[in-house]
């Protein structure tokens, strides 16, 4: 049986998703990106192949997305904007707005019912409102990144973080600690700072229900709840939320392969 691979080379993690010829989700893998795109890509692909019990030769088309897409040696490259749109619609067909918070990018995307992108906005030159911002702050608070969300939910009086800059934000965190503030209150303050920024980005593209959240930060329950409170609506979050971009890439890989096969048939038939 033929399979299709989507590779998403993110700044912090490289993701791989395999779908089968019927477009069904087969497996996924997430590995740290490290410094070498090709090594991370091979490692993610191998893990996904093993999980699905599929051999490399069964992969007939591969699409790469993410910042390292041009160096992933795939059959085609598609931007993460388009891939997230396709992946989110696959998981939640009623999605009309997507919020993706990854390691170094935050994206707000409006989509049509068929998965095509209507409009989008991205953060540009700075890490404010991204996973990297949270990672730096977790280190300053001496808390595991995974624990930041649950910890922040214990707070009822958040400490205000006014700076969007990661470096100045860290200074503010250190200053709050020096003043004896509780870690859980700082964690909630950080969620609110990021939340306000990303909700502003969502409002730039216009929020239309349903909203689907993707990216590594979607696994942070505290962050999700803060954004939902600011938005005034709940968001869809899939168990596959971290691999939505790779899933979209795999779906596009399947479509392109099928289109190429169809074209071959037409040529053979002289139609």
């Amino acid at each position, binding site marked *: 049986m033929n399979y299709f691979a989507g590779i998403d080379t993110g700044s912090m993690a490289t993701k791989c998703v395999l779908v089968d010829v019927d477009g069904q989700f087969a497996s996924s893998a997430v590995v740290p990106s490290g410094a070498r795109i090709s090594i991370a890509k091979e490692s993610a692909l191998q893990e996904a192949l093993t999980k699905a019990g599929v051999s490399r030769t069964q992969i007939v088309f591969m699409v790469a997305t993410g910042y390292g897409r041009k160096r992933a040696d795939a059959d085609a490259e*598609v931007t993460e904007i388009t891939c997230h749109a396709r992946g989110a619609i696959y998981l939640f067909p009623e999605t009309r707005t997507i919020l993706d918070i990854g390691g170094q990018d935050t994206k707000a995307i409006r989509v049509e019912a068929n998965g095509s*992108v209507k*409009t989008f906005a991205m953060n*540009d030159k700075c890490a404010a409102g991204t996973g990297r911002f949270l990672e730096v702050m977790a280190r300053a608070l001496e808390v595991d990144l995974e624990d930041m969300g649950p910890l922040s939910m214990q707070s009822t009086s958040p400490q205000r973080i006014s700076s969007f800059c990661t470096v100045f934000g860290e200074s503010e965190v250190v200053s709050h600690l020096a003043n004896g503030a509780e870690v859980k209150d700082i964690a909630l303050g950080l969620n609110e700072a990021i939340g306000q920024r990303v909700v502003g980005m969502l409002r730039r593209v216009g929020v239309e229900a349903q909203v689907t959240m993707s990216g590594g930060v979607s696994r942070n329950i505290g962050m999700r709840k803060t954004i939902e409170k600011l938005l005034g609506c709940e968001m869809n979050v899939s168990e596959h939320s971290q691999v939505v971009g790779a899933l979209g890439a795999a779906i596009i890989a399947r479509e392109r392969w099928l289109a190429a096969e169809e074209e071959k048939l037409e040529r053979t038939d002289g139609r």
Partner: protein
Amino acid sequence: MADESFSSLLQACRVTTNPGTYIAAWKERHPGGRLVGFFPTYVPTELIIAAGALPVGIWGGSISPSRANAYIQQFTCSIVRSATEYALKGTFDILDAALFPPICDSAKLVGSSWRLNFSDRFLVEMVNLPERLDSGASVSYLAAELRRIGAVLSERLGDVISDDALRAAIAACNRVRRLQEGFYRWRESPAGARASLTDVCTIIKAGTVMDAGEYAVLLEEFLASAGTSQRNPPPTIPVVITGLACQLPHVNLLEVFDSSGLRVVNDDLFFGMRACGQIAAEGDPYMNLAQGFADSAPLATRYHSRKKRHELVLDQVRSGRAKGVVSLIPKFCEPEWFDLRYLRQELGQRSIQHISIDFEEDPGMIGAVQTRLEAFAETLS
């Protein structure tokens, strides 16, 4: 043949990569020839030519503004900071004069600051253009201002600007503007898809460095042999760019644009100079220059109560059959960002897709811009 003539035009226009070499050669051919720098978006270069000098555009460039940062705030656009860095380095010491239009607060700042700091090296003069194009007093006011500038240049350069010399300079600049218009028409045609944004920037920028007559010959020779062959355009998405009237992005950003799947069919690159169209050659040349300016299309820095900025963009979209518009706007450019809201609204009402991207002369994180441009192309395809 068309490809060969385009390559020759491009090769000849590459002087812009090192204007100093062209200027040195020009000075050798014109012993005692004077050089007058001018800052975008518009200065009547006819006055400079009529004074027997070579007009040289002051564009700034990709240089780290370490000296300039001591004088100018970091939230000022990069053309002002990089041009000042070059001035502090002494790059512009070859100039005899520099003319600045007060098109925005930053341009006023740089003009005044240069006058205070560099007047011992070259003459620095503000050309006080009216902001309103359609006020009853605009034309007579500007004609008087241009006479003043003419007198200041004459005194500094030692050559009196005669009305006949000014009429001849108007004719020379009319020729360049007519040819540039022809070049843009060619670029909209299927044959023009050969020209990347990088190439077009090189060719238009050359017009701000080269002698008007030499530049016109290059364009004339190219247009005579270029034709508008009916070959199919490449499978790229036609778009219009706006926001480039004052500043050029770094070549890396231009190249990213060219590899994004988008094809630029029209732009407002250096439009301040091009928009004056054909200026009357008979009669009072100062009144004619002022009238040419008043009749020009509006830019972010020019206001007209009836002609609106977005109408120019919509015309370009229609004539180039563009599928979308990219606002490529210098960071901290207040006039352009002010106009953006209205442009976005007008385009939205017509369901024309639009994206805005800011840039500085130092390209910075080019990968994020690449993703946004490619995603825009995917959205339009």
